[in-house]
Every structure is written in C-alpha cells, then in structure tokens.
C-alpha cells in the first residue's frame, strides 16, 4: 500500500560545503538521512543529529568480564582443582597468590575488551566478510561526498533537488 521510499543523493566535492548544506537543509526540514564520506568529517555527527555511540561502554563491559573470567580460571586451575606445592610458593589461597596472577588477569582483560568491542563494531555496522556495500558513487571513497535525502510523499522532489544543488552539490542523483 505504501509507495516505495524515494531517495535523492547530492554529490559534493568539499567537506565544508557539505557540512553547511547538511545543517541548512535539515533546518529547512529536509530529511537528510545519511552522509557517505571518504574520511570522518568533524561536526557531522551534530549536523546529522546522531546520538553518541555506546561502543566504548560495550568494550568496558567486555573488559570486566575478562577480568572476572581470568580470576575465576586462575582460582579454579591453580587453587581449587589441583593445588600443588610449586617451589613452596603459596598456591593454596587466591589472595596470597594474587601477585603471580596479575599479568594473566590484565592480559585477559585487554583481550576480551578489544575483541569484544571489534566484534560489536562489525555487527552493529553490519560490515562483515561478503557483505555487498551500497555504493551510490564510487568517488565517495576517493574525494567526493554523498548526501542521502529521503523524499516524503508530501514533498515535491524537484523542489528538494533544487534545494540540494543550491546548497553546493556538484550534481544530484536518484
């Protein structure tokens, strides 16, 4: 029943023009969906009104999981499951042996924090081996920038196009 969504794309060749365009158009009430750029543009998050990512929080979570898993492993293997007299070192109580356990605990923390975060990143961005990218303009990874605009049923497409090219786009697609 809904007619398919319609998008128009503005191609820019300067990051500053783009940044202003985004701000301007959104102010004009145009629904700027996304921006594709060859490198991260500072201020674009605010311009597009993106909420800050929580990926670092995820990383922290993975980190503390690593810490506790490591301590659990160390306690189980060397203290609980089969404690042994190893050179008279106090292997019979975690708190006594903790100095020996610090390096492994630390490394495991980093291991989980880093890998957990990277995996989250890949999943959230849906970038994985074999994923076909949506390439609007091949130059968008070289030196051009693409603005993705949703045109709503109640909007006049030519109108939108005009506003985009007026905002400094070198061409308008879609």
């Amino acid at each position, binding site marked *: 029943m809904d007619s398919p969504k319609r998008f128009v794309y503005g191609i820019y060749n300067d990051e500053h023009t783009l940044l202003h365009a985004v701000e301007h158009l959104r102010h004009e009430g145009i629904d700027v969906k996304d921006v594709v750029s060859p490198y991260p543009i500072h201020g674009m998050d605010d311009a597009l009104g993106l909420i800050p990512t929580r990926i670092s929080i995820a990383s922290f979570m993975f980190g503390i999981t690593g810490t506790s898993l490591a301590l659990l492993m160390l306690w189980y293997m060397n203290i609980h499951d089969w404690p042994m007299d*190893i*050179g008279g*070192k106090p*292997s*019979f109580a975690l708190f006594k042996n903790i100095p020996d356990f610090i390096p492994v605990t630390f490394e495991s923390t980093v291991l989980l924090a880093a890998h957990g975060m990277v995996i989250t990143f890949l999943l959230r961005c849906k970038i994985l081996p074999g994923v076909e990218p949506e390439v609007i303009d091949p130059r968008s990874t070289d030196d051009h920038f693409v603005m993705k605009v949703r045109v709503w049923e109640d909007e006049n497409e030519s109108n939108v196009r005009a506003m985009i090219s007026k905002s400094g786009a070198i061409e308008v697609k879609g």
Partner: protein
Amino acid sequence: MEKKYWKGVEELNNSPEFLKHRNNEFTEHLPIEESLGIKASSITESTRRDFLKFLGFGVAAASLAACETPIRKTLPYVIKPEDVIPGVPNFYASTFSDGHDYASILVKTREGRPIKIEPNDLSPISGKGVSARVQASVLGLYDNARTKKFLINGMPASKDTLDKEVKSKLADIAGRGGNIRILSSTILSPSTKKVIADFTAKYPTTKHITYDAISNYGMLKANELSFGKAALPSYHFENADVIVSIGCDFLTNWISPIEHAGQYGQTRKVNKDKKTMSRHIQIESNLSLTGSNADDRIRIRPSEQGATVITLYNKIAAKAGQTALSGGNSAMDAIAGKIADELWNAKGKALVVSGSNNINEQVLINGINMMLGSYDSTIDLDRHSNMKQGNDAAFVELVNEMNAGSVAALLVYNSNPAYTAPNAKAFADGLKKVELSLSFADRTDETAALCKYLAPDNHYLESWNDYEPINGSYSLCQPTIQKLYDTRQAQESLLTWADIPVASFHDYIAEHWKGMTPAEMSFDSFWTKSLQEGTLVTNAPAKRTLSFAGNVNDAASSLSNQKSSGEVDIVIYEKTGIGNGSQANNPWLQELPDPVSKVCWDNYFCVSPKLAKEKSLEQGNMIDVKVGDTTISGPVYLQPGMAEKTIAIAMGYGRTNAGDAANNVGKNAYPFISVVSGSMQYWASGALNKSTADDYKIYTTQTHQTMMGREIVKETTLAEWQKNPKAGNPDVLIETPEGKQRPKDVDLWATEAQPGFERPNHAWGMAIDLNSCIGCGACVVACNAENNVAVVGKDEIGRSREMHWIRIDRYYSSDVTKENAEEKHLGQLSMYGEMEKPTVENPKVFFQPIMCQHCNHAPCETVCPVVATTHSSDGLNMMAYNRCVGTRYCANNCPYKVRRFNWFNYSESAKFPYTLYSESERMVLNPDVTIRSRGVMEKCSMCIQRIQSGKLTAKKESRRPKDGEIKTACAQTCPTNAIVFGDYKDSSSQMLSMFKEERSYWLLEELDVQPSVFYQTKVWNHKAEESKKEEVKA
C-alpha cells in the same frame, strides 16, 4: 535355586583327590622335574640351583637370538621359578676379582638379569662400598665385543674339536718334555690354583707364571728379603694417626683400594664425639687422587724418590738410634726432618707406604715401618694380602724362553701381555715361536688375536669361583645368570684337558670347601650359609714375631744410583676409572671424568703450566715423548701440582682389540714401562719435543678450576675446628631493617607450618661429609647404573652435555684470594682475573659431589610453564618426564646446574651406541626407571624408586622405614660413607644428627632455596704452626 555348573565329572563326585587339587592350575601332576632331568625329590632341597636352570631356559633362549632380535622380547617363563617374582629384584652374594681389583659384592638381578653391583656389607674387606670399576663391571657381561664362540685361528669351532686338538697337542708336548706354561694375572682363588696343580700333575712340564700388568713384585720381593715372606701385608689405615704416602695412590689404585678408602674414611671423619683425625702427608710426583686428599703434599721427581726415602730413613734411624745410610736427597732434608718428627711422635700409630715397585725402596720402607713399630698395628703381615702375586722376573724369563723357542705351549688366562707388557713386541715375537698358543680371554684381545686357540672364559657373573684375597678371609662367586654365549669357564676347560672328571667347577669348589667346614656344622648348611653371606673369615693365624732382616745398606747404595737420565721424568700412573685397561671397553668408565683432571674418554700428558711455559706449550698441543727408543706422541693437558720437570701419562688407554668404545681411545703408555733391577719401573726419564701434529681437543666436564673466592666448599683446620666447631662455617646472614637475619627467616614464601606444605610423613634428605669424600667417582657410576643415565660420548662431552645426575666438582686453590688481593695491590678486575688461575705449584684440591639438592623452595619448579616439576609431600623435587615440553627454563634457573636436558634421542640414535641403544647392553637397564625421551629435562630423583620400594616394604610390615634401610645408589656405594641418606622426620636418623652438627651448611644458603641436601665443612689437619699462620690471615 540358582543353577550350578560342574567343571567336570570330578567336581560332581567331589572326590577327596579332586578337593585336594582343585585350586591348582593343573589338577594332575606335571612332569616338570622329570623333564629337566632332576629327581623329583631334589627340587625341594637345592632350589637355588634349579632356579638357575629354569632361569637359564628363559634368558638363554632369548640371548641366543640376541644378535638378530631385541633382547627386550624375552620369552616368558615357561615355568616360573619360585624365587623369581616379576618386578621384584633378587640379590645374590658374589665376588668381583679380575686379578687387579677385588670386591665382595651383592648382585641385583631382575627377572634373571644382573643389573647392578652393590657392596656386601658382611665383607671385612670391601664391606663399606664398591669402587667405580667394580660398579661398572656388570656392564661387561653384556659387552657386545665378547667372543661368543670358541675360536681356532679366529674361526668359530666346536668345543669338542678344540678340546680334541688341544688335548692331543698337550699330550704330545708333555710326552716329549716340551715346556707348557700357564700365564695368568694374580689368582686369588684357591680352587683355581688347585685346578692348575691338577693340570700340572697331568702335564708335568707345566709351569704357572703370574704376571700383573700393574705389579707389586717389588714389595713381594722386599718382604721376602726383609721377613722371609714373599707376600703383601694387609694395611690398617684406620689405626694410623700419621700416614706418609710416598708416590702411593692407595685410595683408588693400590693393592686393595676399596678397603683402604674405607679405613681412611674412618680416620678422616670428625664429629662431636670424635675430635681428632689422621694426618696425611703425600710425597709424590703427579697429582694423584690420594695426593689431592692429603693435608700436606710434597712434590718430588720420581727419580728423586729413592733418595728421599733414604733421607727419611736416616732421619728416623737417628731417632731410633740406628745407623744412618749413605746417600739421600739433601733438598728434602728439612722437610724429611719435620715428617720424621711427626712419625716418631705417632710411633706405633704411624704408617709409611710407598707405591714404588722398586725392591730396594720397599726394603727401606719396611725398615722405616719397623722402626716406627707399625707392624701389627697399622700393618698386618700375618693376615697377609694375596691381592698381587705377579712375578716380574718370572715373566721376563718367560719372554726370553719363548723367544728362545723353548716354550711349546702357552695358555694365557686373564692376562693381556701383548698389550700391557713392557716388552710387548718381544712377547708377540716369542708367541709366534710357541706351538700351542691359547687364550681364555673373553674377547679377541691384543693377546688372543695372536693366539691360535681362543677358549673364551665365562664372565664372572656367569661363573663359580672362590677367593682368598687376604689370608684366612674367603669369599665365593656364584653365577647370577645362565651363560649368555657359548663360553666355558677357564677352570672347567683346564679340568677337561687334564681329564679330571667333575660335573662342574661348582662341585670342584664344593669339594675343596669340604675341607674348610667347621666341625660344628654340616657341609650343606656351611655351604649354603657361605653362599648366602658370600664371605667367610677363619680364625686368625698364629702370630709370628717379625724380625727385620733386610740389608738396608745394599738397598740404599743401589737406590742412590737411581738418577734421572733425561730432561723430564715421566710418571706412568693408573686412572681411577680405566685402571689397567682390562675394562677399557666399558662406556661408563670411559665417561667417568678422571677425579683430578675431570677429563673423559682420553689419556694425555699431564704437564705443569710452569713446564709448559718453558717449552711454550699450550693445552691440546701434541708432544712427542721419547724414552729409550720408544716414542709416544700425545696431547698436553695443563695439570697443576706436578713436580718440577715431570710429566705423567695414564696406562690403560690406546687399546686396539677391546671393542668399539675403547679402541684407539688415547695412547698406550705401557711401552714406557721398563724392568729395572728385577722389577718393573712405572716411571721413566726421556725427552719432550713439541710435535708438528695438529692440536688435539681434550674434553673435560669441568672447564673452570677455581672457586673464585666463593664459599662453595667451606674449609677450616683441625686446630681451629677443635677450638670452635663452627670454624670456617659462620652463619650466612642478610642485612634487614630488623638487623642481620638468616635467609630462611626473611622469606615471603610458605613454610612447613602452612597448609599444603607440611611434610606429614617423611622429609628425605642427604648429608655429604666433604671431609671424608675422597672424590673417587664410585657414586657417579653407581648412579648411572641405577638410573639408566645416558652415556653421550666424547663429542657431546666436548659440548658440555654430559648427562650425569651426580657429579663431583673438583676445585683448585688459587694464589690470589679475596683476602690477599689488597696485599698484592690488585684492583677488583685484576683480582677476579687472577682468581681464575689455579695455584700452579701445589694447589689445595677440593672435591664436592653435587646432585639435585631437592630445594624446598625450588627455583626450577616455579618457572616451569606446564607444572612438569613440582614438590612431593616428602620433600622431593619431582620431575614428570612425559609432561615436560623442554623449555630448559628450569635448568637456567637452577643455581646448582644439576638439571640435564635430552638434546638427542639417546636411546634411539645410532650416534650413541652405548647402554641405552646397544641391544645387548640394554639388558643392564633398570626396569624401575624410565628411559627419558628426546627433548625432556631430567635430574637426580634421589632414587625415588628405592624410596618407594623401601616405603612399601615397611608398609607391608606396618612400620616406618628404619634408618639406613633405604639407601640411594650413591650413598650405598660410597666406600667412605661420605654420603648419608635419611629422613628429617626420623629422629634416629644418622643424617639428622649430622645435620645438627656445626659443620653442616647449605650450599649457596644466601639464595634461601632451602635444599634437602647439605654439606659438611672440609677440615684440614695442618701442623699446628701452619694453622696458626692461617689464623693470622683470617
């Protein structure tokens, strides 16, 4: 009602018959005894001999196939001998005697294989321990170089053919009055002598000549001249307060070394109950093992030895009011005076011995001992020793006869003159002229190769024999395995050829022993007892008052002609490991580092660094040494402690027909021996020239000679120790905020008090008394045998990769010490540089056996990534071979460097054709100890297999192991009992009481690794004023 099935109709009937037999495997009687041709009754009487028969079935069957198929795949017992339980060792009292060494031993057999020699502590002679050579002798049984068949002209022949030929020849020769000669080394066996007598009765032209490669004829002759008794005395070092040894290596190489070492050990031990020890002065030319244990050591050239003895004689004669002799060594006058004083003060408790084979010198020595009243206190000529009976003169005469062609038959028994004789060439030539030449050698040795017939003798572990090493003290030798090869005991051969009908030599001996049966005993019980105990001492013979009849003046005058006729004197000495070379093909002995030089697999010219500098020689340079017209070229080894202008080389090397391990190892030094004034002289004078040959690598297990001023071996003097028992061994203290403390009191780690670290049951430990350790290396060979330690060969020794679990470190003192560095105005750098150099002239020598110290805070354990080495609850540092991944971190972190890594697959690689690889030698391996594979770490386990079996025995009798019940191989074999194993938890243990003594210390205590092994300070018995000097220094 459950069903019941009958095994057979018998069970149904349940006849009394059936009930009696139902629990036997075979209900009806099996004709076992019959099948073995034994009267069914006899099996109950003499079970041990039957065991040997049964045993023979299994092993012989396997051994015959030994050449092709591995011996491991031995047949299971068809009938299990009742006294062989798989996995449980049997011990048999027996005796080792090869005409050179003697020991009364226990042979440990497993499933019928002799695998280890252990001391028979019932023996008054060798009760305390076993020497390296005797320990190693078990390997000789499995030596692949042994002759496996009778040979005629080198071709295998049947016994009968050989017997027929030999007998007809002998009959023929005797018939026409041709001379028959039996040439042997010393024979201790009365029965064997009887055999020879019987043989002589049959062939009257027979004469028995005794010839020892290393002869004591000089003493025999001297005693004949002095006391009219051509015998060696037996010595009692334990009664001596002052021992003066002139060129005599009595601790490992002279007459009865094990016995002497044991007695000497007693006199050297000190503890809170025994505050005195013997004083030992050594006057010698090359640094011998005995010399390196001496409190004072005086260096003389061998050519000066005679004169020195004269001087000493005169000094003592002066005190004894006897007339002085002409001649003497003026240079030694002062020293001889001092020595004389000491000897005279210890009159009756003094002993002077000389290693010389010179008749005149020994006459003077007898004179000296007579004046000192040593006879019947430190010397016993009534219970005289038979250890050496070689007659040099007779041998020389024999060789002349042979060359004159007047010897028709020569039977060589247990002797190898073609290799050892001073005039070997002459002997070989003479042998060609002999019509019937026969050898009983166990291999085609240098002599056998020249003989027409070879009737291989059994190995002693396959033989019956009896011995009388010391007058009135007997021991028996019994077979512990059926003969491996088609050999026959020499005695049986002789009996056969003499047509004397006896079933076996065993019966012959038994016959002979019937005469010795004490009245109150039946022969059978006497015989069984003797066999079980292996040794028997009869009542002392009646004492005879000795009157000294030696003509000292003649002796002195001919002795003073003794001069050096060359620029250097050459001492031909005997090595602790190889001895006279008869066991040269024994890899254990070849790889046993020489106690003093620490060199393996070689002999060499010992040259003092001083002489080397004069001649601009360096270690490994080849030199040509010319004596008369014999020249031997060999490498130089820089040896401190040599006399001026004196070099030394060891006998027993340079074999050509001994086997793969021995052939062409080192140089044969026997040709340097010459016959001077009726006896063989073991030194010579000649010329030394640098050879053009390329340098030669001498490989040693110890490349650094000094202690670098570290307290590795702690030492003190008797005088100081008597004043202060902690002398030389002050507590190791560490500075802490709370002041100085013992390392174990400043410790982060667990103590026994903490849970998990208690020693609930045992805490094994070991005491090592550095004062009674003489460094002989018997423990090293014992450990090799007990723990299947790999022999790695010369090259690997060169790469410092020996595998020995126990080693004996030997340190020389250095001129520069931390104390005197200031006086010498040396900065720290040059001080350390200088401390690396051992004292050239006359260094103090220290021996220190080191094995795994079983640290309770072991540095090796904490660093192992895979928990392959951990601590047991009874204080042992354990090694799990099959968990080890081989990072070698533990070895790096071991401060004592006792861990050994398997660099190669020693048991599978043909590069190492020794005990682990050689199919036949593998039979000697101890089944209780794993063979370590490539890439894993190994080390001393404190003979954990012995500990476990000891614990089991005790447990079965529900008691604790008794102290001394469990002994590690090293402790057990030590002739001086310097190593004592024990349990810290056993308040009665000797080890514990030693631990409580003030002399005890932990090696490197400052590291606080808390070893289970501890050492006891070395105490020197210097003269009073000397020890004063030291006090001043300290």
